[in-house]
């Protein structure tokens, strides 16, 4: 039982990181129907800014986060302005391939800055943990869960109550109507990239806290893809539920598979997100919460 609960806790904390990356993906998809495969690169670069400010310049961690978020947002806006703006109205495929290229370019820059060794994030949590009914819950896990809950809450409030959030929802729903109401759609596009980049940065921070930040973070970030596919490309709730489903099944597999199904080999848990994605797609091709596209052929 303890083992199960432990796996669950680990799963939820992993889910919070997946959710951050997936949310960025969903927000960009909703506002401009672009599949953004550059999320992992944004995570690397965002994580690097924070790491750099916190360890190389020795700033207080919260300050490093705030300035890092500003840098991440600027990165998002610059990327959108320079590479995606000219692609407005182009086929979805072309834009998706473009973001794969972007992912490569930004990753190369980020990795060149980071170097090959594992870098400490400079976070205050380290390896500390609390014991609770036989469970070991790391401080960084708690921090990740709390931070994601707060971020998601802020995001939802932003969409619900703020003028720009409303403009973003309107643009997602019907771009032409948003235009007639005086919404600047280009601002909405830029804003959605900024938000996605900041969320990816937070993903990087929590991936790297304690254990250290290195290039393999991009591989973990890539699992946001099964998450959004499971949840539905255009659903914020879907991103969160998908993250929970994928991450919990991954940690459960990591806990039990070596014992009960050793024939599947080592590291099978890494595959689990994709297996979940496959299963969901077989039965719900639009994801659990995705909008069905009704199209006359």
């Amino acid at each position, binding site marked *: 039982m303890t083992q199960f609960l432990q796996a669950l806790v680990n799963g939820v904390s992993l889910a919070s990181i997946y959710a951050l990356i997936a949310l960025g993906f969903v927000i960009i998809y909703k506002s401009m129907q672009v599949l953004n495969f550059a999320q992992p690169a944004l995570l690397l670069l965002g994580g690097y800014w924070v790491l750099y400010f916190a360890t190389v310049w020795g700033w207080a961690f919260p300050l490093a986060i705030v300035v890092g978020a500003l840098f991440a947002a600027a990165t998002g806006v610059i990327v959108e302005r320079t590479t995606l703006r000219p692609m407005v*109205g182009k086929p979805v495929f072309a834009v998706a391939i473009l973001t794969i290229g972007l992912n490569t370019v930004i990753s190369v820059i980020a990795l060149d800055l980071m170097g090959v060794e594992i870098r400490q994030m400079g976070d205050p949590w380290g390896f500390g943990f609390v014991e609770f009914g036989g469970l070991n819950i790391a401080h960084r896990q708690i921090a990740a869960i709390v931070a994601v809950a707060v971020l998601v809450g802020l995001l939802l409030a932003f969409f619900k109550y703020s*003028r720009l959030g*409303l*403009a973003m*929802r*309107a643009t997602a*729903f*019907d*771009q*032409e*109507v*948003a*235009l*007639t*109401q*005086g*919404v*600047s759609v280009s601002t909405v596009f830029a804003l959605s990239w900024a938000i996605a980049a900041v969320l990816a940065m937070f993903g990087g921070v929590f991936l790297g806290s304690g254990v250290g930040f290195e290039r393999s973070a991009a591989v973990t970030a890539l699992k946001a893809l099964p998450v959004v596919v499971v949840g539905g490309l255009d659903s914020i709730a879907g991103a969160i539920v998908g993250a929970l489903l994928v991450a919990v099944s991954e940690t459960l597999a990591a806990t039990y598979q070596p014992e009960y199904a050793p024939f599947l080999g080592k590291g099978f848990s890494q595959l689990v997100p994709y297996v979940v994605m496959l299963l969901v797609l077989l039965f719900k091709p639009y994801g659990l919460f995705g909008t069905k596209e009704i199209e006359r052929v």
Partner: protein
Amino acid sequence: MLALKNVEVVYSDVILVLRGISLEVPDGKIVALLGANGAGKSTTLRAISGLLDVHRGDLTKGQITLDEHRIDHLPPAKVVKLGIGQALEGRRILAELTVEENLRLGAHTARKTLDVNLARVYELFPQLKERPRFTAGYLSGGQQQMLAIGRALMSSPRFLLLDEPSLGLAPLLVQQIRDIIVEINRQGTGVLLVEQNATMALSIAHHGYIMETGKIVMDKPARELLDDEDVREFYLGLSSEGSKSFAEVKHYRRKKRWLS
């Protein structure tokens, strides 16, 4: 005064839709723009509000001016800020959002006057006031049209562009929408009314334009249009001799296809 001069619009670089049209909407007047399907009425509105880009259209000749300042080629947000509001054809409300959120969106460019405008819209449309948190997609067709007009009013426009507000509404609701347009106009807003329902449009308009295949073919005060022989016959479905038999208008030659 909102004015179009010799405006020519081309879609996808090849399809000439507006062939040099000119029209004027004076402050505080209702101007009706009539015409059959595909005459270019909606395109005219798009040219004014800057929405041509969305449809791969391009204004190739002529100019659109608001008080002598050119507003063609301005982004739609600027046009709204200058005081031109639009309710698109087919209502196009944001179905997933609530009534009040739809209205708040309309005030995107006029944040400071949000409360005043909201009160004004609720006064014009008491039915919307009863259910601000209602999901807009579940409103009835008439209420959705009211919401669309109300949303366009939230930016306190000087000119309101209405595209087929009577589309798909029951006659009684058309009456109601008609009265509302008159009331909006009475409060000082100029209206450019695009309609297929010519009877309704001409009954409230000060001036009327008739479009056919991208050209303005008639331009007269609404009262004169109502009395015009051709307009009565082709747009109002009336003629001096009462209703005609269509057999006299068009007659088809019979052919024995199966033998020839």
